[in-house]
């Protein structure tokens, strides 16, 4: 193409402010205000990319978001950003971009050989071949996968990076009475009207400046209107902002390109910002897209939309060629012709597919100095690299075919106009079917009753000038030999659409899926309607009955980073206990438990995790240890019916629990399976403190709230989450009482004052504490609760007090080892599929009262003794086995036979001096004493003989705990 910059003109560029950028390694110059596209056209570049399938050279077709061809990769701050439309990149010094989908170079692309495949590569050819023989060695999916590898390499557009994207994305919530999408004239009119009524208004404009079509078509009123709008204090104007989706309740998602157009960013400034705008009313003034025409060779660089050329001339002072021809089916191209002429363009001819052309159009053609050829069509284009000439022939618009001999016209730029399609995308996101307007030959927005309106061209209100008609002739295709493209990016031709029809694909959705028409990065903004028209022709039905495919968010592609916004990397929410910093300072390996961070173990002397937890567990069994259990869910339960409420939600009784005592409780789901467990403390006749597992704190709270608010509103109970109010630490081991006795004041902690499950109040190092004698480990143990802000202080005091007895902190792994030895269940066993009986907790199922789940827990499938039940497993020869191993009967690891169950948890047991575990094994109780195998073929290939034992493997009588 022989585009060039005029010596004057260009509304948005700054003459004299030269910008240097790099494209495919070569330096170019542009002007401030240029897009990459305008700068490349001004620089005489015609080939900007290669097409998806045939790798044909492609140039710039459009001037905005509808651009199908000119996609480049921006090489910014480390992370590559592929597939960005050159028409949307504002150039700035230091911009580096490269073309895509070409090898080895843009000018010479080996994969252009694909074109030699010709008709064999027509739509859907891959469904019919590449299957290979049905039998070995190339049977199954082998053949296809070999071909697929090649296909994948050839497909795809730009290349994604592998380096982390370090740029910042923001998310902002906004509220307004009226959201105006589109800052062209109709949008500004809507915004001003709403603003004058003192409504809160937000205006989103996709371009850097307001004005839209009015601006580049030279509307005399537009500057004043913009000034007026900018002066309103109740109007927020967001430029470079694309509203990309409308969701339920008029929640509109929009992307603001905050600083992509600059090299430098202020501290904290985002690259892009996602707006979520909740609008009372949405006014869409999104304009319309000009359609291309489908004729052989219409994809040659140098062929461009007429309005795009007009826009480049007006906004950037750039003309796309020295000899310009125009082909059209409607009057709007005449407006473009005269506008180009006004900017010194040489418009040599206008080829109109229509045989009848209005007087208005004729006179414009003559003013523009262009020879008017009515009833003619472009039947071929020619040129190397760019466009040199076109072939024009008489045309019958009913048959869509040329009727006579063609004539060559020398030109370096061909502008096309196939009429206009209103941008109704956002209005259709709710799913309503667009309505066909047979006058405008366009789909208009569905009426779906939401608080949403359309204005200007988006509503089909086209104004092309005095005496010009808004209605195109319903002909979009010239059927002549040669590839005529409907979807430029995806290389879908008119013949492909007809082939799809021939093969029985008669729905527009079928044609889209079979040919990939409209599935490219421009989402069919240019290709949809011509494609549908060709299908309608093939079906012999009016376009109205063919319909259009469904519009889906986003309106135009948006970066994943902008939608994820602040929600990744170091901004992930994380919960820490009051003692967190101590853990970190003292060598804890922290591990995630839901959002919580918990110590896994405290490594010393380069110990392994296993060495550390064994040491820690031994300390608890022989001396005394301390563990941070602040993560347990805690719920304050108050009210006259608190006891009755607990009796309903727990399987066991709580009404008769004395004040000052706690009890272990079990909850079922309504369907009879186990939901959660924990201890609940009675602090007063009408007040309990419930604890839940760490993982289920939230779900249990919601469960209780649901029953209180929805099912049993008469029960007078208040619930408050106090998880964060209390720091909690368990002191466990034979010397635990010694440690407490040494430091707790204001209460005794002897066996009489503080028996198992008893609760006392006292103070530790001045801090009021509440102590409950509870054991998860099976040792004598106490849970010390204090106000969370004092947690670290009390923890330190306990550590200091425990020094004479060698107190050590222990982490999750040791906690796990201790509980496995004792046979306590956790989330690994309460996995949503186990019953109380499965877990040997049937003793907790009260027969004296109903409770949630009691009606469903005795169903046929929940009671057979063949169900998997909780047992202990002990390694017979001392060999290590693993959590997640399955229990099998066969000694042969190669033929393990069916699974009888699995190991839910395992550890090295200091007490037994060997590896032990808990397992859910079918008919578990009947297998006590059996010798089976724990097999782990997927991970460690271990196949370890184990003995099935009772699940309580330490101190079954409870003497240690109660002593």
């Amino acid at each position: 193409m022989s585009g060039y910059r005029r010596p004057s003109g260009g509304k948005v560029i700054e003459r004299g402010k030269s910008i240097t950028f790099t494209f495919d390694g070569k330096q170019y110059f542009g002007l401030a205000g240029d897009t990459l596209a305008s700068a490349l056209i001004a620089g005489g570049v015609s080939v900007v990319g290669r097409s998806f399938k045939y790798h044909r050279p492609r140039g710039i077709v459009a001037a905005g978001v509808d651009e199908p061809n000119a996609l480049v990769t921006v090489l910014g701050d480390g992370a590559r950003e592929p597939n960005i439309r050159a028409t949307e990149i504002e150039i700035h010094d230091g911009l580096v971009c490269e073309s895509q989908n070409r090898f080895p170079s843009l000018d010479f692309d080996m994969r252009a050989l694909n074109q030699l495949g010709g008709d064999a590569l027509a739509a859907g050819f891959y469904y019919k071949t590449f299957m290979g023989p049905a039998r070995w060695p190339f049977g199954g999916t082998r053949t296809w996968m070999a071909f697929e590898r090649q296909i994948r390499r050839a497909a795809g557009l730009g290349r994604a990076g592998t380096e982390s994207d370090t740029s910042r994305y923001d998310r902002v919530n906004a509220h307004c009475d009226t959201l105006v999408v589109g800052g062209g004239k109709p949008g500004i009119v809507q915004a001003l009207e709403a603003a004058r009524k003192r409504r809160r208004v937000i205006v989103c404009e996709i371009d850097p400046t307001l004005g839209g079509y009015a601006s580049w078509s030279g509307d005399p009123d537009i500057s004043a209107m913009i000034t007026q709008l900018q002066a309103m204090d109740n109007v927020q104007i967001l430029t470079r902002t694309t509203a990309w989706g409308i969701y339920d309740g008029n929640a509109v998602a929009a992307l603001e390109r905050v600083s992509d157009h600059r090299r430098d960013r202020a501290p904290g400034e985002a690259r892009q910002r996602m707006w979520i705008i909740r609008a009372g009313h949405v006014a869409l003034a999104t304009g319309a897209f000009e359609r291309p025409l489908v004729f052989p060779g219409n994809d040659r660089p140098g062929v461009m939309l007429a309005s795009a050329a007009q826009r480049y001339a007006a906004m950037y002072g750039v003309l796309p060629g020295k000899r310009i021809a125009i082909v059209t089916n409607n009057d709007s191209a005449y407006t473009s012709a005269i506008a180009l002429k006004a900017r010194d363009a040489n418009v040599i001819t206008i080829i109109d597919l229509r045989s009848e052309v209005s007087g208005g159009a004729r006179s414009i053609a003559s003013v523009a100095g262009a020879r008017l050829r009515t009833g003619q069509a472009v039947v071929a284009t020619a040129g190397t690299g760019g466009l040199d000439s076109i072939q024009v022939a008489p045309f019958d618009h009913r048959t869509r075919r040329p009727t006579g001999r063609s004539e060559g016209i020398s030109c370096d730029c061909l502008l096309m106009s196939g009429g206009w399609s209103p941008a109704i995308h956002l209005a259709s996101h709710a799913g309503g079917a667009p309505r066909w307007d047979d006058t405008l030959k366009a789909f208009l927005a569905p009426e779906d009753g939401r608080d949403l309106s359309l204005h200007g061209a988006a509503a089909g209100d086209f104004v092309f000038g005095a005496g010009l008609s808004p209605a195109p002739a319903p002909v979009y295709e010239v059927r002549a030999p040669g590839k005529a493209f409907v979807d430029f990016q995806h290389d879908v031709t008119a013949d492909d659409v007809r082939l799809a029809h021939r093969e029985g694909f008669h729905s527009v959705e079928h044609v889209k899926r079979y040919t990939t028409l409209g599935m490219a990065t421009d989402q069919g903004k240019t290709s949809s309607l011509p494609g549908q028209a060709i299908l309608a022709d093939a079906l012999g039905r009016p376009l109205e009955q063919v319909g259009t495919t469904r519009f889906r968010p986003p309106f135009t592609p948006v970066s994943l980073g902008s939608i994820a916004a602040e929600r990744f990397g170091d901004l992930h929410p994380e919960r820490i206990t009051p003692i967190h910093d101590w853990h970190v300072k003292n060598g804890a390996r922290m591990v995630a438990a839901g959002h919580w961070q918990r110590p896994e173990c405290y490594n010393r002397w380069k110990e392994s995790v296993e060495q550390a937890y064994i040491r820690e567990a031994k300390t608890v069994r022989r001396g005394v240890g301390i563990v941070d259990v602040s993560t347990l869910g805690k719920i304050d339960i108050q009210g006259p019916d608190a006891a009755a409420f607990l009796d309903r939600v727990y399987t066991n009784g709580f009404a008769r629990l004395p004040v000052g005592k706690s009890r272990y409780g079990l909850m079922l789901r309504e369907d009879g399976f186990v939901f959660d467990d924990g201890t609940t403390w009675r602090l007063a006749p009408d007040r309990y403190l419930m604890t839940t597992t760490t993982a289920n704190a939230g779900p249990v709270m919601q469960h209780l709230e649901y029953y209180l608010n929805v099912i049993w509103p008469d029960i007078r109970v208040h619930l408050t989450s106090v998880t964060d109010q209390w720091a909690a630490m368990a002191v466990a081991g034979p010397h635990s009482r010694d440690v407490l006795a040494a430091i707790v004041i204001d209460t005794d902690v002897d066996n009489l004052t503080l028996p198992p499950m008893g609760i006392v109040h006292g103070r530790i190092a001045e801090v009021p504490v509440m102590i409950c004698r509870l054991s998860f480990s099976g040792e004598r143990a106490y849970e010390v609760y204090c106000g969370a802000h004092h947690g670290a202080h009390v923890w330190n005091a306990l550590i200091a007090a425990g020094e004479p007895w060698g107190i050590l902190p222990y982490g999750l792994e040791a906690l796990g080892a201790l509980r496995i030895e004792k046979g306590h269940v956790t989330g690994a066993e309460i996995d949503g599929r186990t019953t109380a009986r499965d877990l040997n907790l049937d003793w907790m199922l009260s027969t004296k009262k109903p409770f949630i789940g009691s009606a469903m827990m005795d169903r046929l499938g929940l009671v057979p003794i063949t169900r998997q039940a909780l047992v202990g497993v002990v390694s017979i020869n001392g060999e290590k086995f693993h959590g997640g191993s399955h229990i099998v009967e066969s000694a042969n690891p190669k033929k393990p036979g069916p699974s009888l169950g699995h190991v839910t948890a395992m550890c090295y047991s200091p007490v037994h001096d060997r590896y032990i575990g808990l397992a859910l094994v079918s008919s578990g109780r009947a297998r006590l004493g059996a010798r089976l195998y724990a097999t782990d073929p997927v991970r460690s290939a271990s196949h370890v003989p184990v003995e099935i034992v009772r699940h309580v493997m330490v101190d079954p009588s409870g003497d240690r705990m109660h002593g």
Partner: protein
Amino acid sequence: MAEYSALQVIRNALGGNEHWKPLWRKPDPKPAYNVIIVGGGGHGLATAYYLASEHGIANVAVLEKGWLGSGNIGRNTTIVRSNYLLPENAAFYEHSMKMWETLSHELNYNVMFSQRGIINLFHTPAQEDEAARRGNAMLLNGVDARFVRPEELGKRMPALDLAGSSRLPVLGGLEQPRAGTARHDAVAWGYARAADRRGVDIIENCEVTGFIRDGTRVTGVNTTRGDIYARKIGVAVAGSTSRVLAMAGIDALPIESHVLQAFVTESVKPCLDCVVTYGGGHLYISQSDKGGLVFGGDIDGYNSYAQRGNLPIVEDVMSEVVELFPAFAKLRLLRSWGGVMDMSMDGSPIITAGPLPGMYLNAGWCYGGFKATPASGFCFAHTIATDEPHPLNAAFSLDRFYRGYVLDEKGQGATPWKH
């Protein structure tokens, strides 16, 4: 019609592709059939195909209210896997997997089943044990499985952030190497063509508006194209199950309809060679042959028939993609869409005779229906033809819920939006 082959493609190309025939006929409905299948999606078409091919019952009509394959068969994220924990599910989905491996040949239509592997990432020691439990279950059930260590993950997925946010580093993954992706629409078209070739009538734009009853027995359907009678009527309408069965007077089922969104980015050159799932949330992602990253997450979580979802899930899913692959922050979302899922009360499907005499039900696929397509059709055809469940679908009965024999792969109980 001629078999599809490379030769055929070339021969036709030389003829300007003028001689290709429709994949399926467009017949008018006959007054009666042996079997009517309501629902022209993957499962319905597969059922019709296997009725004809396995049971010799070709006098079959498939009724589709819109265009063929307009439901979930064309809206899913195309993943095929059989990495299940529970033996009943494992047996069924593994059978399906084996059928997938030969499906293109069986149908003489390339469904592009690509066994690129699926990797479920794990991030904590507890998750590692969970993964081992599942992986071992798979191996013991005769399904392929292996552990993948971080070094290999890094090599196979250069953009994967192994360190994660440090809160959830990648400790490894459980891979099913034989799993992969297939071209979803092609499955519908392939089954439609193959069923049609065996004489099945595929009738599009034919909406069922009621059931014709003889006492309790269902003997036909009223449709927008007239009444059609049949000895047996199979219903395979996924998210529309409750709606359709309500016409037969069934006012409640263990099913809720929920919307699941799916997403695709712009095409890029190959950068993700397998299917990956994130253990720190709910995300599954793969790259299509065209180059787009295809992914999805949780269902939106409220009853819906709208085939579109809302922003909270969109944001959740994008944040998880970027969490795993920070480089992908700069890739761009091209399109999102929604499908209506028939969420069952335990997350597992229903393939059964009933609930009325003469009626057969295939439903409850949650968001796992695509990979089940061949086995679902195979078992449903068996159930319809023989009035007995195939051993593979014996556990997928309707009364299992009430009897307590639930197949709760996720352990979430009767909370369908959590499965």
